[in-house]
């Protein structure tokens, strides 16, 4: 399938950050159309029709999420934009923030109009210093030109937008951890229900949407929900940004229709494997997504197809590993991450992530035993469905992915105290 440039239309074009240029090229026309020609309900219906799904990783239908917010006006409603992109292997939102900040602001206006929101916050990870500077300049300019503020684009509709910088915690990308952090607390996720759509930021109804999800709204309003839906397949509408990294010749962000197979992303757009070595494994959607073997790369990239294959499309951060990679070492890196980033609130996650990390470290160092493999699986299983948020679940899925997809490598490590792959690699060298 060809590359389709919707949200990535302006990547690499420095002028697009400039408000005048953006407007001259059709920018904010979709927001105008929504505000002046459509009722909030019509906007939501168009988004439902588009089959747009939450592109932060969970894949929840966006229009449906909006429709959970009560229609009453007794409490203020908030929009929290999730720009806390921190799932390892994911860097697509950074491209939108750096190259096309006005497309995000336009999406924020469209969403706010549809839901009846007058205050929005963008929660951006603290490490994104340059994206923050660019986004801040765009927001300031939008205020100066009357695109944000008391009368959005001249309409009797008020919308304030403020950027809130995070401070280095993966858990704040979890939507209720994000809300806690926005409220000035440590990012401990909340028990659900109540869901944020009813009790969210400052105890008020709140929509939480990912950067890319909101960036797609311009095209959906311009060209219609059906048009967008038809670009994708089934209930996975439109296109999506795939962040490709690891052992490929051309790593980067590629916008492709939903349903494109991994093989095409890796070999056509990514140029194939570095040094023309053999493909070994692919992580399909950020490191929480269970790893796929090379013989699974013909799976179409949709939320539903990946679920069927026992993995997930998640944040669409695609990490490619060639034949020289030791899977125990890969799992060790992944386990170190989760042990570092568990927020410490729930026991299965706090202890499980540390436990798994220490056992995998031992195996990698050549001191593992056969029993360790059973213990790892046992720990992983106990980390599912036993904690408040999805971090534990994601870690558990990732661990089980490595252990079940590449069991022979783990067995070799514990039996021989060394790495089969590394030996072969050294023999070749």
């Amino acid at each position, binding site marked *: 399938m060809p590359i389709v440039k919707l949200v990535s239309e302006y990547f690499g074009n420095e002028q697009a950050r400039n408000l005048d240029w953006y407007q001259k090229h059709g920018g904010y026309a979709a927001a105008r159309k929504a505000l002046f020609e459509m009722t909030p309900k019509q906007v939501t219906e168009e988004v439902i029709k588009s089959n747009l799904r939450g592109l932060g990783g969970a894949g929840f239908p966006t229009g449906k999420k909006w429709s959970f917010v009560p229609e009453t006006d007794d409490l203020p409603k908030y929009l929290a934009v999730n720009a806390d*992109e921190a799932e390892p292997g994911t*860097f697509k939102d950074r491209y939108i923030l750096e190259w096309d900040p006005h497309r995000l602001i336009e999406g924020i206006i469209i969403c706010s109009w549809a839901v009846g929101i007058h205050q929005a916050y963008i929660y951006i990870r603290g490490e994104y210093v340059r994206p923050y500077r660019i986004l801040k300049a765009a927001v300031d300019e939008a205020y100066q030109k009357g695109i944000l503020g008391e009368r959005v684009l001249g309409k009797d509709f008020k919308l304030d937008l403020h950027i809130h910088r995070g*401070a*280095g915690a993966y858990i704040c990308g979890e939507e209720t951890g994000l809300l806690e952090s926005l409220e*000035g607390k440590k*990012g401990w996720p909340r028990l659900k229900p109540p869901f944020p759509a009813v009790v969210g930021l400052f105890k008020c109804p709140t929509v939480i949407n990912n950067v890319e999800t909101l960036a797609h709204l311009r095209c959906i309003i311009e060209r219609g929900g059906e048009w967008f839906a038809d670009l994708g397949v089934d209930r996975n509408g439109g296109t999506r940004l795939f962040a490709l990294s690891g052992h490929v010749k051309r*790593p980067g962000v590629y916008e492709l229709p939903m349903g494109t197979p991994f093989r095409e992303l890796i070999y056509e757009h990514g140029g194939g494997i570095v040094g023309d070595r053999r493909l070994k494994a692919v992580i399909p959607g950020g490191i929480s997504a269970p790893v796929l073997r090379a013989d699974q790369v013909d799976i179409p990239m949709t939320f539903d197809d990946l679920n069927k294959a026992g993995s997930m499309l998640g944040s669409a951060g695609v990490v490619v590993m060639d034949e020289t990679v030791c899977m125990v070492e890969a799992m060790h890196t992944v386990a170190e991450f989760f042990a570092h*980033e568990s927020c410490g609130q729930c026991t299965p996650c706090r202890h499980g992530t540390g436990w798994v990390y220490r056992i995998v470290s031992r195996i990698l160092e050549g001191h593992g035993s056969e029993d360790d493999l059973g213990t790892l699986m046992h720990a992983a299983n106990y980390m599912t469905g036993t904690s408040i948020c999805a971090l534990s679940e994601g870690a558990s899925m990732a661990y089980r992915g490595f252990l079940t997809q590449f069991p022979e490598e783990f067995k070799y490590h514990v039996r021989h105290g060394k790495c089969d792959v590394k030996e072969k690699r050294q023999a070749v060298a």
Partner: protein
Amino acid sequence: MTAAPFEFTPENQREFEEILTKYPERRAALLPALHLAQLQNGYISPEVEDYIARIMELPIVDVREVVSFYSLYFRRPMGRHHIRVCMSLSCMLRDCKSIRDHLHKRLGVPPGGVTSDGSFSWEAIPDCLGACEIAPMMQLDGEYYGNLTPEKVDEILEKAKEADRQ
């Protein structure tokens, strides 16, 4: 030794007041207030915590809890330039370990350390910095540098030192 009490410069005080207007609840300004204080002081000392607790009208323990939860707040003085080397999976696949080892050798202090002349501090972090397409990569004073080699790292360090001399 008694440390000098901390307070915002008049300019930062104005900025802090501006931040307060962005939220319906005062406490929501805590993270931005801490960012501002760290920018001014270089790190969050106990005196800074004390001051922030007062102006935020919070118990000091609430401030300490937040400072210690988030990894971007420093609780001790760091170098004039701070480096974070990404050790996440995509960078691991592109041999970030050689970059980490080179920095260790070059700076002469282990990760988390500050060089004796105070010019650099550095960390090797397991969390992803979100720039896997330029792996291996690192962040120096907020800017991202990618496709690193030991030689390229040396150049970056040299440029930072040069900027200090000017």
